[in-house]
């Protein structure tokens, strides 16, 4: 008994050591608690949580990019804050959707403060989904989005390509390149992602699409979050791989089990 406990304890220690390896020994800056920013001004929050990397004037440091290079505007600021992609706990962290660190009011005040730096990127878009056409959305989604985000919206992995293009420390580590699933995005976030092109996503702004087209794509992505899906459990929306797994385990597994039962119930040899 005591040996088992010892083995388990060692395992836990080893595993926790492994999982901790990813993060630096000392935190980059004080951790941010959810809801901490309530009732505080955007300036205070930015200087406390964002300026570490993006600079106190938003002009960037060697830990994070400048916000004044033309891509950033209130759309991107709003997008990274509402999807919890920012702020990061340390610069090398993977940029991905998490719980947002601030409430809507705090986000609005940060967006307003960052806007005062004089950035030139796109603003938060106005959507008109009531008149958006689902059929047009399907067509445009299939043509422009499905190759990475999948026809079902389940997302997918992308070839990494040239990951040594940047010498900045915050981007130097080769990372997995993933087009995320679209199931959690709000309509505004979908449109913001399209017109700003976060991460490796290309920009699909007004040079590519009219506002009506953007609306229709957003409407179709929102539709994909709750599609008129039939035929039973949709096993992940990833197609034949999941189906094959079900066929072998549930289907053939069950049938071999039944054959085995039929074979051994036949009496003594």
């Amino acid at each position, binding site marked *: 008994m005591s040996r088992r406990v010892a083995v388990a304890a060692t395992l836990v220690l080893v595993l926790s050591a492994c999982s901790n390896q990813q993060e630096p020994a000392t935190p980059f800056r004080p951790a941010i608690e959810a809801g901490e920013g309530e009732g505080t001004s955007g300036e205070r929050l930015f200087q406390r949580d964002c300026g570490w990397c993006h600079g106190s004037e938003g002009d960037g440091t060697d830990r994070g990019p400048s916000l004044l290079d033309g891509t950033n505007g209130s759309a991107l600021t709003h997008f990274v804050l509402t999807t919890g992609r920012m702020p990061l706990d340390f610069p090398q962290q993977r940029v991905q959707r998490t719980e947002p660190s601030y409430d809507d009011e705090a986000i609005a005040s940060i967006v307003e403060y960052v806007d005062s730096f004089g950035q030139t990127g796109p603003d938060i878009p106005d959507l008109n989904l009531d008149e958006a056409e689902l059929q047009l959305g399907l067509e445009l989604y299939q043509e422009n989005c499905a190759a990475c985000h999948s026809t079902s919206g389940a997302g997918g992995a992308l070839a990494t390509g040239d990951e040594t293009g940047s010498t900045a420390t915050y981007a130097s580590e080769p990372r997995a*390149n993933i087009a995320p699933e679209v199931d959690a995005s709000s309509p505004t976030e979908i449109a913001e992602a399209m017109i700003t092109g976060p991460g490796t996503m290309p920009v699909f702004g007004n040079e590519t699409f009219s506002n009506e087209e953007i609306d229709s794509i957003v409407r179709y992505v929102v539709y994909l979050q709750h599609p008129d*899906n039939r035929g039973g459990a949709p096993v992940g929306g990833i197609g034949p791989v999941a189906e094959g797994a079900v066929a072998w385990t*549930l*289907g053939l597994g069950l049938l071999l089990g039944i054959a085995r039962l039929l*074979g051994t119930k036949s009496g003594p040899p």
Partner: protein
Amino acid sequence: MIKRFVRGMDERLGASSFARQALNKVFPDHWSFMIGEIALYAFVILVLTGVFLSLFFEGSTGEVVYEGSYEPLQGVEVSRAYNSVMELSYDVRAGLVMRQIHHWAALLFIAAMVVHLCRIFFTGAFRKPREINWIIGVTLLLLGIFNGFTGYSLPDDLLSGTGLRIAHSIALSVPLVGTWTAFLVFGGEFPAEDIIGRLLVVHIMIVPAAIGGLIAAHLAILWRQKHTDFPGPGRTETNVVGSKLWPTYAAKSVSLFLAVFAVTALLGGLVQINPVWLYGPFRPEQVSSPAQPDWYMGWVEGALRLMPAWELRAFGFEIPNPFYPAVLLPGITFLLLYAWPFLEARFTKDLEPHHLLDRARDQPARTALGAATLTFYTVLFFAASNDLIAKLLEVRVETVTTIYRILVLGLPPVVGYVVFRLMKGLLASGAERFTQMPLSAVLHPRR
């Protein structure tokens, strides 16, 4: 009156003595003899559901405006093939469940054939005099895979169109005849108008007829040659011990048929398969990701993904890269499968007929070779989902591919060696089961 009718028929056909003999035919009791039957019954279900589907499917790439009840496609121009599959899925009563049962039964049909083939291989049931049935069996597997692919391609959705484009490229990659073959089969530049109609004829007439005929031959030869059996008390090279067809084995076999029906119906009703409404209609300029074939083509897809980008020029011809993983590898695979009974007979110099089966341990070399080969194809199979694994584990696709390249060459010899030692140890120790085998028997097989 029925009695008189039966007697009258018998006087003219003489069927009763045959029937008596047939009903008394003895089937061995071991459960693994029923795996092939799972495939047989899956085929029966494929035919039944396939007939239903053929009443509604339209094998044409002609354009038509979709007017069914799936909202995002209403008013969109789609092919007649896709339109009819959408109607089957959303507007024909029981259409979707029939489609899904058909698709699940196809996956199970080929899976059962593969497991059946493994059983035959590892027990040496292919040895003389059963080489002909082995050849028929391998042909059935080949036809099953081929017909699975044609069926997957029929709905003309974005995923199946992607699959057809890969098939087209593979055809193009064959030296000398590739371009001609591709044009001949597809009827023009990809995506050609003829291909769906042609696939339909192949899928619902030619190949099913061939499969049906070969199954009949497979069973007739089995009947004529009688079953093999595992060695055991009272079992010799000249007898079969087990249950008579009537009533015991008939009850077992009918139960298995009902079970296959139940499982395919359960899957067809409860688990979604091939949601073509989400994939959307095929457009040559579009592509989706992840895009995988059904599982039985996974090993070819995996080989395509793992193959380094080598191109060779020979005799003034460029041999395109897909030729090696998608033409040469499957070609060699099936050639070796066909030739195996004769190769083994030559290597072991064993030309005698055998009716008693080997246990896996009785032939450590064969078992090890089989295990190593299975490992090779299993790694290829998993490599077909390298992008999904990369996303799941949040690592780079390139990393996953590199690991698979190492595994596909490195793992089979390791597995083969380990299995060889285990089988040797099992044989030497005389233990009945793995769990009863002392470890020393594996480490020092000679003692």
